[in-house]
């Protein structure tokens, strides 16, 4: 039965591991369940669910598992049975087997039996912590000064009923990429190089040198090593990019927080790059694209983020810009080529999945920039291109 619960949780997408599962068994055996489903609900959750975003899934799993059987489900019986005949969810890895052996199930079983016996003897009036009506801080109707009524918590509602409330629904986040994952991927974007600038004290070298110098201190300095990546991030905002706002925000905030670039700049555009790029999302404050291009050289990497999804004339015609009042003299595609010519080490990240990259404009842009999906794998591949360890190739025309 217990093992079924493990499977059940995993079936609801909760990544429970054997190690966490064994921790739960141990906690139960040393008496933390107090034979109460409310307590078991919290105990299992705090040991096996480590993100509040998963709490809702846990509630659903818990409710569907215990619905109907809650009154027959005796945690003590189940646990005793499990401890006598420990059935494990699946083949164990060596590390997990070691954890299981370290647990010493026989000892746990003995301890748990003692605990149960004690509970029977001293029922309704001991100062141990399982019985009811005792002076322990736990259990029903206790008289401990700060004690709480546990089984009755929630106005006499059962643990399953509480779980069906789905109180954590708002904390769900079915996210694709989170900031941490993006940050980790960006971290790989470094090329170390000796840098000019103030020198740093080299402690190891100083000690060696001072020792050779018969204890007379000889300070050794060295130029610091710095990442020489310069990154310009260009993000498409508005229109068809709206569904991807959150994802782009995460990419942006991860890149912004990554303080390991030599230089980092960001600009926004709408649909395609034309003669102005913007420093704010609402595109009020602009800077001429030609001026930005002048600042750049081949040591810069440009990373464009957009769905590359537009009408062909927005890309290939002068005056084709999406904003009605805006007549561009140079086509969007030519602007993109200028970036590529200036900074060959550049990529395009597309938040749309590769399988729907069939718009004509996507095809055209892929002939200018190598394009990658804005997923963990796509981002990693793209970064490998920027680092120069993966060939930098656009589609053949």
């Amino acid at each position, binding site marked *: 039965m217990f093992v079924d619960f493990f499977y059940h949780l995993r079936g609801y997408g909760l990544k429970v591991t054997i190690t966490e599962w064994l921790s739960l068994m141990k906690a139960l055996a040393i008496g933390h369940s107090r034979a109460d489903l409310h*307590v078991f609900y919290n105990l299992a959750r705090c040991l096996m669910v*480590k993100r509040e975003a998963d709490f809702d899934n846990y509630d659903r799993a818990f409710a569907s598992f215990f619905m109907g059987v809650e009154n027959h489900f005796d945690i003590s019986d189940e646990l005793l049975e499990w401890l006598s005949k420990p059935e494990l969810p699946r083949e164990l890895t060596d590390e997990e087997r070691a954890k299981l052996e370290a647990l010493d199930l026989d000892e746990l079983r003995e301890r748990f039996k003692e605990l149960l016996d004690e509970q029977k003897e001293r029922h309704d009036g001991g100062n141990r912590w399982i019985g009811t009506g005792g002076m322990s801080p736990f259990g029903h109707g206790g008289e401990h000064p700060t004690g709480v009524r546990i089984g009755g918590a929630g106005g006499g509602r059962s643990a399953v009923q509480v779980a069906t409330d789905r109180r954590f629904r708002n904390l769900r986040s079915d996210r694709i990429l989170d900031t941490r994952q993006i940050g980790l991927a960006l971290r790989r974007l470094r090329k170390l190089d000796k840098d000019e600038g103030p020198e740093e004290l080299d402690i190891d070298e100083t000690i060696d040198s001072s020792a050779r110098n018969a204890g007379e201190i000889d300070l050794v300095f060295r130029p610091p090593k710095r990442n020489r990546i310069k990154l310009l991030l260009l993000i498409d905002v508005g229109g068809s990019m709206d569904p991807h706002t959150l994802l782009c925000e995460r990419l942006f905030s991860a890149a912004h927080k990554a303080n390991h670039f030599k230089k980092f700049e960001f600009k926004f555009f709408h649909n395609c790059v034309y003669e102005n790029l913007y420093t704010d999302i609402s595109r009020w404050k602009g800077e001429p694209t030609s001026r930005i291009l002048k600042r750049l050289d081949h040591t810069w990497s440009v990373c464009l983020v957009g769905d590359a999804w537009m009408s062909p004339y927005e890309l290939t015609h002068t005056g084709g810009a999406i904003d009605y009042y805006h007549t561009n003299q140079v086509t969007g595609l030519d602007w993109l080529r200028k970036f590529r010519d200036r900074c060959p080490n550049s990529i395009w990240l597309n938040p749309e999945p590769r399988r729907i990259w069939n718009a004509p404009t996507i095809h055209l842009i892929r002939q200018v920039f190598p394009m990658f999906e804005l997923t963990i794998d796509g981002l990693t591949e793209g970064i490998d291109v920027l680092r120069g360890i993966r060939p930098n190739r656009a589609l053949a025309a």
Partner: protein
Amino acid sequence: MSFHAFSGTDTYLASPELRDSVNVASALEKPLLVRGEPGTGKTVLAEAIAENLVMPLLTWNIKSTSKAQEGLYVYDTVQRLNDARFGDKDITDISQYIKYGPLGQSFLTDQRVVLLIDEIDKADMEFPNDLLHELDRMSFFVHETGKQHSAQFRPIVVITSNNEKELPDAFLRRCVFHYIAFPDKAEMEDIIRVHHPDVEAELLRQVLLRFYWLRDLPELRKKPSTSELIDWIAALRRGGVSTESIESELPFLGVLMKRENDLEAVMAAHRRGRVN
């Protein structure tokens, strides 16, 4: 079986679930990871545990530059070099130049202590991974002296996180996790009365109604927190706003909402339908 159970203190009211989580973490000797919105009492929890169980409290405040090694110990080479140079001290004993950090100290004490690792998500994202081994074994090795230090009394470790960064899975697996939920209306009333003891009942009722309505709006990026609510009440009272206009105008909204997008979203929602 002697069992020290955490039960909250006079000033720190811990929910039954929180007590259970603390006690399980303490019994299994695993770190307790506490997460929750700002102002839900994550940091104070460690103080309450220390007070309740009568244990000393060691605090390690994490900054963006914190390194795992600093928590264990730092070898003060410069001091030793200096002493060697001016030669009025015996420098052969390296251990005098080993300065233990809060984590190292918590392993070395001769009684059980509470160790608070505050705001772990502020540090570099590899930081939690660097602590895995030490938190698992509760021991560490000092290379300079060649000594292994193991905790005689494994500390109760409380780690707080504001969720600024996602924490690594390997780290999460080793923790007991507790999420402190945002206070509900009744709890919030108690909190407000601590800060505004003489607040008018009707104002409080109106304000709480709007506040929780706001927090429920799905389009908000940043939900207003307890401290912002307290500021809002201060602003409303000082501005002498009538309770009726709180409903019709939502005055001083800038105190609650700091983002332009959020402000617009609230105003739009407010126009769509007045709350009751």
